[in-house]
């Protein structure tokens, strides 16, 4: 059964209920891996960066509050910063994972294949096509083209809040479609 709690409620519950963060992770795992795979073209690197992304999210779980930026946007921001830092330093940041005492992630061939399958263009195009046009456009502009919310809002002649809601709903729709295997 799908957990009915919002992302903010899951993050707030984490300190007393660690499994809540597992639910949060599963909810956003594919989007973050897809985002990183799109930019690195390397499933192992994408998994390493995703691991540090969620470790940093865990250390900041207490600070997240619902607002204009959905939780997935917050995660993508962390992932983007990590990617930029990794490129500058020539290695993937591990500070949050070290601070949390996390074991290094070992990837099986099956796991690598699962990550690679996320990047199949046909799969993405098919999933995006299932979204309402306004949500699809907002997701492509924000997540794929990495444009700022205010820039998208100006182009679409709507408020930034509307763009954020469309991206949030679009990503939720993609997630549902992935879970349903449609």
């Amino acid at each position, binding site marked *: 059964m799908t957990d009915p709690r*919002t992302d903010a409620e899951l993050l707030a519950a984490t300190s007393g209920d*660690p499994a809540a963060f597992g639910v949060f992770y599963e909810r956003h795992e594919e989007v973050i891996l897809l985002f990183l795979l799109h930019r690195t073209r390397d499933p192992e690197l994408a998994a390493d960066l995703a691991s540090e992304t969620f470790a940093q999210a865990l250390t*900041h779980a207490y600070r997240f509050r*619902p*607002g204009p930026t959905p939780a997935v946007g917050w995660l993508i921001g962390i992932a983007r910063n990590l990617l930029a830092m990794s490129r500058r330093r020539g290695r993937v940041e591990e500070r949050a994972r070290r*601070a*949390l005492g*996390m074991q290094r992630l070992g990837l099986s061939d099956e796991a690598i294949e699962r990550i690679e399958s996320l990047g199949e263009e046909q799969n993405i195009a098919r999933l995006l096509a299932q979204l309402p046009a306004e949500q699809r456009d907002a997701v492509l502009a924000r997540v794929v083209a990495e444009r700022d919310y205010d820039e998208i809002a100006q182009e679409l002649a709507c408020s930034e809040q509307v763009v954020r809601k469309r991206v949030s709903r679009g990503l939720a729709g993609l997630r549902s479609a992935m879970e349903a295997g449609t």
Partner: protein
Amino acid sequence: MSILPDLRDELVAAAARPAPRSLVHRARRQRRTVMLAAAMTLALSGTAGAVLIAAGVVGGEPTTPVPEVRGEQASGMTRTRAARIVATATLPSSGPIEIVGYTMRGYGGRGELICVDVAMRDGTKAGGCDFGIPARAAGLLGTRVGGSPGPKLAVGATRAPASSVDVRFSVAGEQRVRRAEVLNVTEDSAQALGTSPFSYYVAELPAEAEQAVATARDEQGNQIWAHQFDG
């Protein structure tokens, strides 16, 4: 089905482990030191002219220290201004509360985050952080950290001075409205956070409340701020 179940399990295990030794212990030692020094000052010099900073009063340290977030320092976050009480009030159900402000820097390198929390006697906290006040992320519905279950809280900052804040919400489709407790944060307290004076509101709503919208008005009844809560 998770793509990386080992990572999920590792994160859950990390979440279950005790947090590293935190600032809580240091804050408690500091508070005892401040209280002892203040008591000695009173004993030696009397109250006339003495400046007493104590927990539970505006400008003083919070009664419940603001603990370090697990891994905060390791992630590069630093506290830039110590937590101080910026306002106090007593709510009908939740009793005495302290509005606590502090700032942090480091995340994403985007400048200084201003954090404002509502702290309750039973350890419950609600609130949030953002770049600037009134916060774009102002407003919070239903998220209480720690403490015992209670009413939902709608909290947030508005432009100052707010004369009234009404929170409209629905319960099972029925529209209701509740007047919030409005606290005007003084110039001194706001300056201590590096910002301008602002108003802060706290409303206790039924646990089933949803679709809440807070509207702030000035003395003339003009709307000066509004916030629609998620959920």
